């Protein structure tokens, strides 16, 4: 037997290659520095791309003057109100459609034919019905939240593991208890997915609702400074919005972990 020998080497080592931790911090830092430098060197007019420091300093002014607080309060009131209404109604109707086969058969086609309408298109209709005060703004957010929550609640109820329902019935649960102890907790994760999805939609609709006739609100502020071409404050507004989105998401995440400890 020949003594030639062939060592087996790891052919998928590339899958485990690690990138140093600092890379991700590096990326965002370098980007910011680059941005700042470009602006400092006046390579692009500050009107089009203000420096990060300029944005922050103008942002600080907005905060100090209390203007920002007004905008945030106005926006928060709208979004929280609209979200609460839309989510509550969405969950309730979703549960009804999920539980009652008749309601399902009759109303689901209706829901699915309204669903693809971009909710912003309903804004003029809602203005017609509700005017241009707070009501229509809250309503459009509620509407935008309603549909994803409803559809997720519905499919959450429908996708509850049939074996769990059978198990519950076997162990003596009444119909009411099956709903309460099995279907509701079983649908909860999907409902939360809907709530998270709706958070993004709510923020989006907040901005577009505020673009129509609002004095205060982050969306109104962004449009205002956009019209005035004050890019620093405009970008600060955008930053606040993304922060708001992040916070909203974190909050829901936290709530999810509280309510669904078993996941």
């Amino acid at each position, binding site marked *: 037997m020949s003594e030639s020998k062939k060592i087996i080497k790891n052919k998928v080592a590339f899958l485990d290659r690690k990138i140093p931790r600092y890379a991700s911090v590096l990326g965002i830092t370098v980007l910011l520095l680059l941005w700042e430098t470009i602006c400092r060197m006046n390579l692009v007019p500050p009107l089009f791309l203000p420096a990060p420091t300029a944005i922050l300093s103008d942002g600080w002014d907005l905060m100090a003057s209390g203007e920002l607080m007004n905008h945030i309060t106005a926006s928060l009131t709208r979004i929280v109100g609209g979200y609460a209404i839309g989510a509550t109604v969405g969950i309730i109707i979703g549960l009804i459609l999920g539980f009652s086969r008749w309601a399902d058969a009759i109303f689901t086609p209706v829901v699915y034919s309204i669903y693809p309408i971009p909710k912003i298109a309903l804004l003029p209709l809602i203005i017609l019905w509700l005017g241009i005060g707070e009501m229509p703004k809250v309503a459009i957010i509620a509407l935008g939240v309603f549909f994803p929550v409803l559809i997720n609640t519905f499919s959450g109820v429908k996708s509850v593991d049939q074996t769990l329902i059978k198990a519950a019935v076997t162990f003596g649960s009444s119909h009411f208890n099956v709903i309460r102890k099995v279907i509701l907790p079983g649908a909860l994760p999907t409902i939360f997915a809907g709530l998270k999805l709706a958070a993004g939609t709510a923020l989006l609709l907040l901005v577009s609702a505020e673009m129509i006739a609002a*004095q205060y609100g982050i969306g109104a502020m962004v449009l*205002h400074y956009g*019209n*005035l*071409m004050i890019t620093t404050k405009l970008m600060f507004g955008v930053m606040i919005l993304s922060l708001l989105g992040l916070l909203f998401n974190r909050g829901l995440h936290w709530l999810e972990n509280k309510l669904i400890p078993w996941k």
Partner: protein
Amino acid sequence: GNQQTNEETTKSEGSSSETTETVDVKIGMLKLTSSAPLFIALEKGFFEEQGINATETWFEAAQPIAVATAGGSVDVGATGITASIYNMVSGGQKLWIVADKGREQQGFSSSALLVPADSPVTSVEDLKGKKIGITQTGSTFHYMAGRLLENHGLTISDVDLVPLNSIPGLMDSLKSKQVDAVILNEPNISTVVSEGYGKVITQVGDEIEYQTSGVFFSPKFAENKDVAVRFMKAYAKATQYYYDAVLIKEDGEIVPGENYDEVINIIAKYTDQDPELIKKGLPYMDRDGRLLESDIQTQIDWYAKEKLIESEIDAKEIVNTEFLEEALEN
């Protein structure tokens, strides 16, 4: 009936309610200077004199006022006359325009066409191919822009009309020159001019006569002719009060009338605004509150020509001057 004829009586002493029962009337309006006669009538008790218990409903936009009036949620509405109102009427939602509430009139500054301060544009003709900011399609601004252009041999299709959705939006866009011209109203014109970023090309009132806004009666309210006439009596008294206080001209210059400060303060109170700002934006209206009736048909025709209203209607279907005339008779 036993109606008060003495115009000097200020506060009702209850004598009027002996034979005339008090009726509740809901008035829908905006917190704008052009609602001044209504503010005056409310503040000075002109309605109570007529046995009318008026309650105000504040709106935030013009369109819902018309809708609410037509639908009867308010009895009387006061707002701008837009294409949407004609569409509403042609769509079967009746309501009556019964009195003047502000118009464009030569010699009185109200609405104007403005361009940025350093714009090369000097006349309406120069606007061919340019962008003109208005609030919304079918709004009074839209109408004014269209008529101004036509006065100068252009049409709407010769320019780009940009709907900017709000007055602040118009001002912002003018400031940042995103549009080449805008239509604006007082006191915003004064603000723009004094801040120096815009200049007036032409005053709308100098170019056309235009019934900008009006007082509306809901069909149900109009059925009760007695109350409607009484309401008009109070309203006409208020417009006279307003006119005499702020619109009297001497040698082409407006001179403050007897009750000038009182009226300004009433308006300031109702609109939550600085009296100095109010002084700059006092719209013209007929002393007796009479409508510029012929202009309504002009408007309808223009909107119809521009396909902004569905089906052309006759001005008679929407204008009703009977109440005011009867109120003015005695």
